[in-house]
C-alpha cells in the first residue's frame, strides 16, 4: 500500500522552523554573523577579569600583577596620575573609561594550575560577565585559559607567559601576548654570551620538565650551538623539585663549562642557589671560568636567590631601572601607590590592560573581532619597551629585549639586576610560520 503524503499547516511550520534552525546553526556557533557577543556590556560599566595566581608558589608575582591591574583601571577611569597613559603614543583613552563605560573588575585565582585557572576564568565569564580575561604567571595556564577564552568568545590578554607555544603552535585568534618568548630570549642572549664567554664552550642544561622548559632549552641550544658551543647534556628536572643537588653533582666533573638553568620562579631560586653552593660560579674548567646562565630572569624571584645572582646573565621583558619616559612614569606611579618598584609581571599586565582598553576605544566596541582587528598590526610607543608592534600573524608583541646580569653591588633589595644590553627588535624577530600553529577565526560568542 502506498503511503499518502499529507501536507498541512502544522508540518509546513515544523519543516520551515527546522530548516531555518539548521541553516542558522553554523553561523550562530561561530558568531561571525551575529550582532551580539559574549558579555556585551549594556549598562554604564564594563567588567574586566583579572585571573592571577593568588595562592601557590607564584602568589607574590600574582599579587604584583593585581596591583598593576588596579593601577591600570584607576588610570583608565581617570584616577591617579595617569601613569603610562601620559606617555603612550595612542591618545584614544581620555581618562573617562572605555567607550563611555567605567571599567570595573573581578578577580580569579589561577593557583598556577591549568584546571583551577580555567575554572576561575569560566566563573568570571559566565557569572561575573567579564568581557576580557587577562593575567597569569605560567605558560601551561596561559595556553589552557587562552583555549577557554577562544571557545567562550572573549579576548584573552596573556600575562606572564614565555613559552613559544602561546603564540606558536597553540595560538588562538582571541589571544594576545605582550610578553616576549623563549625564541627572543635565545636570539638576544646568544651574542651577549659569545662576547662574555667566547665561542668554545660546552653547555650543560637543567630544564624544568614542562612546556616552557622544553621551549626555553630548545631556543638556547639553537642559538648557542649556532655560535659554536657544544651541548654536553640536557637533563630534565621535575617541576618543584626543591633540592636540585642530585642533578647538580653530575655537572661538577662532566667537562661542561657553562650551566644553563632553564628554570623559573621557585625552581630558579633553588637551582641557582644550589649551583652556587656547589662552587660552580667560582669554578675553573678547561682553563676557563665556569659560567651560569638563567635565560629568563624575574627580579621578584631573583630576590629569593639573594647574593647568588651576582654576575649571572639572563633576559627579561622589562626592568624598573629603564630610563625611558614610559618606564619612569610607570615606576613613579606604581612606587608612589605601593612603596616599591614594579616587577616585569606588573609591567606586562599593566600594558595588557591599557592596550586592550585602547583597542576597544579605537574600535568603538568590545566585540572580540573588532578589538582584535584594532590590535592586529598596532604599532605603539611610550610603554617602556620602545617602539612595539602587535604582529597580526601571531598576535605576538615585537619589541627590544633586555639582557640583564645579577648586580655585583646592589643598593637595595630591589636593585638586584642591571641591564647589560638592549637587543634591538630586528635581531629577535622571526618568521611567524616558524613556530607553527593557526590563529583560526575570531569567536565573538553570543
Amino acid at each position, binding site marked *: 500500500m502506498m503511503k499518502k503524503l499529507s501536507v498541512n499547516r502544522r508540518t509546513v511550520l515544523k519543516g520551515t522552523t527546522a530548516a531555518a534552525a539548521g541553516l542558522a546553526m553554523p553561523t550562530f556557533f561561530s558568531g561571525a554573523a551575529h550582532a551580539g557577543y559574549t558579555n556585551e556590556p549594556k549598562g554604564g560599566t564594563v567588567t574586566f577579569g583579572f585571573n592571577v595566581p593568588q595562592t*601557590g*608558589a*607564584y*602568589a*607574590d608575582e600574582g599579587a604584583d600583577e593585581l596591583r598593576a591591574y588596579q593601577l591600570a583601571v584607576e588610570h583608565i577611569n581617570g584616577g591617579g596620575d595617569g601613569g603610562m597613559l601620559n606617555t603612550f603614543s595612542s591618545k584614544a583613552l581620555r581618562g573617562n573609561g572605555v567607550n563611555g563605560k567605567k571599567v570595573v573588575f573581578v578577580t580569579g585565582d589561577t593557583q598556577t594550575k591549568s584546571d583551577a585557572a580555567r575554572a576561575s576564568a569560566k566563573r568570571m565569564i559566565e557569572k561575573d560577565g567579564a568581557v576580557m580575561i587577562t593575567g597569569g604567571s605560567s605558560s601551561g595556564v596561559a595556553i589552557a585559559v587562552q583555549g577557554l577564552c577562544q571557545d567562550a568568545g572573549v579576548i584573552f590578554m596573556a600575562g606572564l607567559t614565555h613559552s613559544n607555544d602561546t603564540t606558536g603552535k597553540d595560538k588562538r585568534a582571541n589571544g594576545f601576548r605582550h610578553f616576549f618568548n623563549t625564541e627572543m630570549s635565545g636570539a638576544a642572549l646568544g651574542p651577549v654570551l659569545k662576547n662574555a664567554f667566547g665561542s668554545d664552550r660546552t653547555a650543560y642544561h637543567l630544564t624544568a620538565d614542562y612546556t616552557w622548559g622544553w621551549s626555553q632549552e630548545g631556543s638556547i641550544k639553537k642559538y648557542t650551538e649556532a655560535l659554536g658551543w657544544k651541548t654536553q*647534556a640536557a*637533563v630534565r628536572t*621535575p617541576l*618543584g623539585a*626543591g*633540592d636540585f*643537588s*642530585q*642533578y647538580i*653533582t*653530575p655537572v*661538577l*666533573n662532566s667537562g661542561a663549562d657553562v650551566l644553563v638553568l632553564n628554570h623559573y620562579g*621557585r625552581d630558579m*631560586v*633553588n637551582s641557582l*642557589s*644550589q649551583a652556587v*653552593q*656547589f*662552587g660552580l660560579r667560582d669554578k675553573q674548567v678547561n682553563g676557563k671560568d665556569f659560567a651560569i646562565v638563567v635565560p629568563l630572569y624575574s627580579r*621578584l*624571584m631573583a*630576590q*629569593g*636567590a*639573594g*647574593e*647568588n645572582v651576582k654576575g649571572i646573565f639572563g633576559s627579561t621583558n622589562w626592568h*624598573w*631601572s629603564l630610563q625611558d619616559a614610559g618606564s*619612569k612614569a610607570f*615606576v*613613579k*606611579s*606604581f*612606587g*608612589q601607590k605601593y*612603596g616599591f*618598584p614594579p616587577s616585569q609581571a606588573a609591567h606586562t599586565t599593566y600594558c595588557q590592560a591599557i592596550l586592550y582598553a585602547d583597542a576597544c576605544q579605537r574600535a568603538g566596541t568590545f566585540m572580540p573581532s573588532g578589538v582584535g582587528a584594532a590590535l592586529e598590526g598596532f604599532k605603539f610607543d611610550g610603554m617602556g619597551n620602545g617602539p612595539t608592534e602587535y604582529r597580526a600573524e601571531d598576535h605576538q608583541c615585537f619589541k627590544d629585549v633586555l639582557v640583564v646580569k645579577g648586580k655585583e653591588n646592589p643598593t637595595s633589595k630591589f636593585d638586584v639586576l642591571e641591564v647589560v644590553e638592549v637587543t634591538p627588535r630586528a635581531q629577535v624577530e622571526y618568521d611567524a610560520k616558524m613556530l607553527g600553529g593557526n590563529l583560526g577565526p575570531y569567536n565573538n560568542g553570543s
Partner: protein
Amino acid sequence: MDAIFLQILNGLDKGGAYALIALGLTIIFGALGVVNFAHGALFMLGAFVAVSVKAILSLEIVTLDPVNKTAWGTPVEIRLPYVEAWFGDYGAVLINYAVPISVLIAIPVMLLLGIAMERGLIKYFYKRPHAEQILVTFGLAIVVQEIIKSVYGANPIPQPAPDIAKGMIDFGILVGFEAGNVVYPAWRLIYFLFSAAVIAAVFSFLQFTTFGMVVRAGMADRETVGMLGIDIDRRFTIVFGMAAVVAGMAGVMYTPILSPDYHMGMDFLVLSFVVVVVGGMGSLGGAVAAGFLLGILQSFASMNEVKDIFPGIDQIIIYLIAVIILLVRPRGLMGRKGVMEH
C-alpha cells in the same frame, strides 16, 4: 668513580633530612599512635624560626637621605641594623651566624609549639581512627602554612650559611681521590654530621635514660605502663615536643641548602612518610636506615648514566623502591609485628 662518590655524599646529606623528619614521625606514631601529617609543617616552622631570628637580628634603623630620591620620588632610606649600630663588628658577626644561633633558639620555641600542638589538638585524637588523625593533622598543616604565607609571603627567603661554612671542602683527598675531583659544599657535610649527631642523641636519650625507658615501654604497651602508676600522657606530651624539636632543628639547619618558603614542609612530608613505611612503621632504626637508603638511591637515580638506561627513573625511584620493599617485606625493612595491623 668520583661521580659515584659524589652521589653517595649527596645522598647522605639528603638522607639526613629525610631521616630526621622520619625519626620524629616514627616517635610520634610509635609512642602516641598518631599519624601526624603536620610533621612537615614542624620542619617548615623550624626553618621559619631561622627566618625570624635573622629578621630580628637584621632589624634596621631607617633614616631618610636628605639628598637622594628613589625612582618614584620618595627620599632614599639609609638602613643600618641595630645590632651593628650597638655592637659594631660583633653585630655583623651575630647576623653572619644567624643560622647556628637559630638552632639554639629553635629548641625552646619548637618544644613549646610541639607541647601546645599536642595539648591543644592532638591529644583529642589519640583514640580516633587513623583516617581522622590524618585529616585533622593535614588540615592543621595547611592552616600553619597559610599563616606563614600571609606573614612572610610566598617567595623563598634566602638564609646564607656563616661565611666560614660557605666554601667547598676537598673531601676526595681524605679518601684517596685526586685533588679537586670530589669537592663538596661544606655546609652540606655539616648538615650530614649534624643529622648523625641528633639521631645519636635521640637514640641515646631513649636508650640510656629512665625517661626514655618509660617511653619505649609505653611504645610497646601503653596500658600496662599506665597500670604501673606512671603518668604516660604527660611523658607523651614531652615526647611530642621532642619530635617537634628534632623536626624544627632539621628545618633550621636546612635553610642554607634550600631557601625556605611556606610550602617546603609539604615537599618533605610525602617523602618522609614513604621513608617511615619503607623503614617499618614504629621502627626508629628502620626510619633512619630507610632515610639514608632512599636519599642515596634518589641521588644515584639522577645520574645521567642511569637515566640513559631508565628515562625518568629519578622521578619514581623512591616509590618504586617502596613498592618492591613492601612486596618483599610487607612490614618494611625493620617493621615490628602488630603495628598498624589491627
